[in-house]
């Protein structure tokens, strides 16, 4: 593929140079040379076994790469004032420092290990604080785990443009590395500005990942009816409706009552499923989950 693309570019250039005597580019017609040329190129590509796979090249290997400018632009892009030294420290991993020392290069930093630890604490504490205003502890813990998961944090990290400015031997950086760098960046921001500002940053980039998610997408009790029974003991399920009971598309509607008051409704393909779903509906109302 790569060869083919190069060949095509070459051909284009030649045809432009040829304009002086054949005046070909002025003619709007079928380019008859394209088909045979592509065929020939295809045959040659197959011959040398070029599979067309391109290994990802780090942006830093490009000629015009300017790390200082990139690091400076990183903070500006996010609208945050970073202390440049701290930010550089946050981006530099221990493994990178070790590698440089092995190669005999002098590095003034000793990696971002302590910043990672600090950032993790900040993110974790803030998320728990914010969520506990609204949800009970079980749900807070579940959502907290979901948000501080490596996959989630690295997703955020990649999309704020961390991938290319992390200093680490591996490329592309692993999920855990990106997640750790994100934590370190959060810590660097806290040290550069203030905790309040840093919390706003976490709110914007981490808490915002809950957008479009429902609590039950993230957390759901294993056995909802049993769980509900644990919260509220004086409940009883009643079969409210059923249809197509003898077919594969059976549908049941179960209501959960307490003191003759209907608390919640649930549907399902069997009475047990419907009972559990009704319990979920009640839990939704009790915990005020939207």
């Amino acid at each position: 593929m790569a060869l083919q693309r190069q060949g095509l570019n070459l051909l284009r250039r030649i045809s432009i140079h040829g304009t002086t005597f054949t005046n070909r580019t002025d003619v709007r017609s079928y380019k008859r040379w394209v088909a045979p040329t592509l065929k020939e190129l295809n045959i040659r590509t197959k011959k040398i076994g070029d599979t067309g796979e391109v290994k990802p090249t780090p942006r830093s290997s490009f000629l015009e790469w300017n790390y200082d400018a990139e690091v400076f632009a990183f903070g500006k892009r996010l609208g945050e004032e970073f202390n440049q030294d701290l930010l550089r420290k946050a981006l530099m991993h221990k493994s990178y420092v070790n590698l440089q020392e092995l190669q005999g290069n002098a590095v003034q930093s000793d990696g971002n290990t302590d910043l990672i630890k600090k950032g993790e604490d900040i993110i974790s504490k803030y998320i728990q604080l914010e969520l506990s205003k609204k949800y009970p502890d079980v749900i807070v813990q579940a959502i907290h785990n979901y948000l501080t998961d490596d996959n989630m944090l690295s997703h955020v990290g990649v999309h704020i443009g961390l991938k290319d400015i992390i200093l680490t031997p591996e490329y592309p950086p692993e999920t855990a590395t990106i997640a750790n760098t994100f934590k370190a960046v959060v810590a660097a921001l806290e040290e550069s500005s203030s905790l309040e500002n840093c919390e706003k940053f976490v709110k914007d980039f981490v808490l915002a990942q809950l957008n479009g998610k429902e609590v039950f997408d993230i957390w759901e009790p294993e056995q909802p009816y049993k769980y509900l029974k644990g919260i509220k003991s004086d409940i009883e399920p009643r079969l409210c409706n059923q249809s197509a009971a003898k077919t594969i598309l059976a549908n049941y509607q179960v209501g959960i009552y307490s003191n003759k008051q209907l608390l919640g409704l649930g549907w399902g393909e069997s009475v047990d499923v419907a009972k559990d779903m009704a319990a979920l509906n009640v839990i939704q109302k009790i915990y005020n989950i939207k």
Partner: protein
Amino acid sequence: MSSLKRVQQWATFARIWHIYDASWQNPFQSAGLLKKYLMGTYKPIYHPLNDCGDHVVVINSGDIALPGDEWKKRVYFHHTGYPRGASWTLAWQLHKKDPTLVLKKAVYNSMDGNLQRRYTMERLHIYPDANVPADIMKNISNQLATPREVPKRLDHYSEKEVEEFPKIMDYPKNYILR
């Protein structure tokens, strides 16, 4: 998808089984009503490509009432495909052969002729009397209102009710009732 969303979907597309008592009903009027339930056009989620039609169990199709002299005048045409294979059957003859066919054909003809029609018809279960298999009876969860009220015949009134019915006048004593 959370499990609540899943069962919401399940309940939205649940098949409802309706029962319809065809006694004394006009099959052609009933066809328009049954069609709506069979195709699911009575649901706001209706779309020709989504499978939201319900089942309808029709009982007492033997007791349908055709309007006017349709029993005598309505003709069902059939052709075997061979020369001289045409046949014309009067409605009363067809009804005698199979008491479900008049209603079935009425529903079938009330729908547009597209690829869905035969599958929609599969959801219609017609029984000539009130004897419905128990398995099918267990599926039913709704009864459809009939457009016509079933009239009560004189022989269905008890003698006492007839006796007590307010009279306009008494027959003269010497009047002979045949």
